[in-house]
């Protein structure tokens, strides 16, 4: 369980998070949603100890973030940040292998090698294992980073927009894998998701943030509603249902938004076509 108490954060003079209290249950796929600048990534980065704590307290499975060494925390949670594009020329298997570093500090044992193989396999990377990271696509590199995070073998996985760089097929596969990690292996995942429908389809628990505050929290059915989402994104949003889950419709009520561009005349359209 992750407990957050009185978490306030500012960058320079700009307040980013306002006195956040939050309890994240274990064994769930938790999605953080909200508009740009809501503070989702900052919250995740604070829990992941990638940013220094300014005020408040964060506890992960009983470990106080402020007083627990970073080595110990690496056995409790694995982190994937937004920037996974690096200039380093590592092979895929070598990168995934570094996921085991917190366990062996340079002397891998059989169990470590086994975990790396499993991670490569789980993310469909076995055929790419000998390829250099700078020779594969951005999406594949993203998957390699995710496999490293998975190989770390921690109860918690913290992911900052893991769907960046991924097309629809890979996004879907990734969300299904995360759901499987939680469902079949009992891991806990906290992930920032931009596209609400991926959260709608796969998450067990949703946290909606806006302007550095938690606006709504709970099961997808209770958070992904028309009033909550419309207020969250400041735009009219229609929600339907599909397969017993909410489905956000992007194209509906489009005319209510208005257009900043003048409508082209029929003559212009004829010329364009």
């Amino acid at each position, binding site marked *: 369980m992750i407990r957050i108490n009185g978490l306030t954060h500012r960058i320079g003079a700009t307040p980013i998070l306002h006195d956040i209290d939050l309890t994240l249950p274990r064994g769930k796929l938790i999605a953080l949603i909200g508009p740009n600048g809501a503070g989702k990534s900052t919250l995740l980065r604070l829990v992941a100890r990638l940013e220094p704590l300014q005020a408040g307290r964060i506890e992960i499975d009983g470990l106080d973030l402020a007083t627990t060494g970073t080595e110990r925390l690496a056995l409790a949670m694995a982190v994937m940040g937004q920037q996974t594009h*690096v200039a380093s020329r590592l092979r895929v298997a070598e990168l995934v292998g570094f996921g085991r570093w917190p366990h062996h500090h340079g002397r891998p044992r059989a169990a470590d090698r086994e975990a790396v193989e499993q991670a490569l396999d789980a993310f469909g990377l076995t055929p790419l294992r000998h390829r250099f990271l700078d020779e594969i696509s951005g999406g594949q590199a993203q998957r390699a980073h995710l496999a490293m995070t998975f190989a770390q073998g921690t109860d918690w996985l913290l992911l900052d927009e893991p769907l960046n760089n991924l097309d629809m097929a890979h996004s879907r596969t990734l969300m299904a894998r995360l759901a499987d990690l939680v469902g079949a292996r009992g891991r806990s995942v906290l992930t920032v998701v931009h596209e609400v429908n991926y959260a709608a389809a796969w998450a067990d628990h949703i946290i909606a943030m806006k302007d550095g505050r938690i606006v709504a929290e709970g099961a997808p059915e209770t958070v992904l509603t028309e009033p909550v989402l419309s207020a969250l994104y400041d735009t009219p949003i229609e929600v339907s249902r599909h397969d017993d889950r909410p489905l956000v419709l992007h194209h509906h009520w489009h005319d209510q938004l208005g257009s900043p561009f003048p409508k082209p005349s029929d003559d212009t359209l004829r010329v364009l076509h």
Partner: protein
Amino acid sequence: MNARPLAAGLALALLVLASLGTGAARIDLAAGGGWTTLVLMESRLPRTLAVLLTGAALAVAGTVIQSLVRNRFVGPDTAGTGESAALGLLGITLLAPAAPIWIKMVAASLAAMAGTALFLAIVRRLPVREVMLVPIAGLVLSGIIGSVVTWIAWEADLLQFVGTWLGSGEFSGVIAGRYELLWIAGAAAGLAWFAADRFAILSLGDGVAIGLGLSTRGVMRLGMVVVSVVSALVVTTVGMIPFVGLVVPNIVARIMGDNLRASIPVVAAGGAGLLLACDLLGRIVRHPYEIPVGTILGIAGSVIFLWLLYRPVSHG
């Protein structure tokens, strides 16, 4: 696959033999004798060892600084480190001329560390995408510190003294008793190999490093110690040796990637081989006179570096 390291080892061994047999004095390695032993033990062997140690240590220091700044276009000689070491040595020479050699080396290393820290602080403020700003910042910093050294040396009438550090490095002055400090540079490079995984992880970004439980500051500090000690000892013992720390890590990374635990020994051997080949060339071209190895490297290194620059960039 196993043939490659064997061939490389053989080539290095041949270079070593050639180095032992090449010089102004005429000796007969096959026949031996007192004169031959004297030349070998007092001059040729120390010189060969000094070249090997310098080449290996500089190349490894290059790998380390490249992983610290996450940029391939820097070397220990283009980060202001050598000039800072010279400044430190000049300072201690002026303040305490009678200080024992180890105190002078400590002063040079500390100054080199301060210079490298300054370089790292500057680089961290540069936009990540602007790959070429990093080497430019290094060259500007080197130039500024170098000119301060020259100015102080001019004022103190020590210009000739300083010239041996900032000028083209060369090994013609190396005899037994005047190169042994380079073993410490070699040991520092060995330390880098010991911490190879940490440098490899750090070069993946602070986020990844912290996520894996690494103390980024600790690794940075260790890297700075390695780079500074190597630079300080090389600069004060044999002078500025350009390009080895820049091109060798690049070529090795091209071929075998950045898994530093595997590549650092190859980087070391490559640096030793390149420097020995250039030093040998400098001894042969106008035998029995010598061309400083720094000059040879200036030509060879800049050609290799231009090739590396114009070859299509695979990242970014």
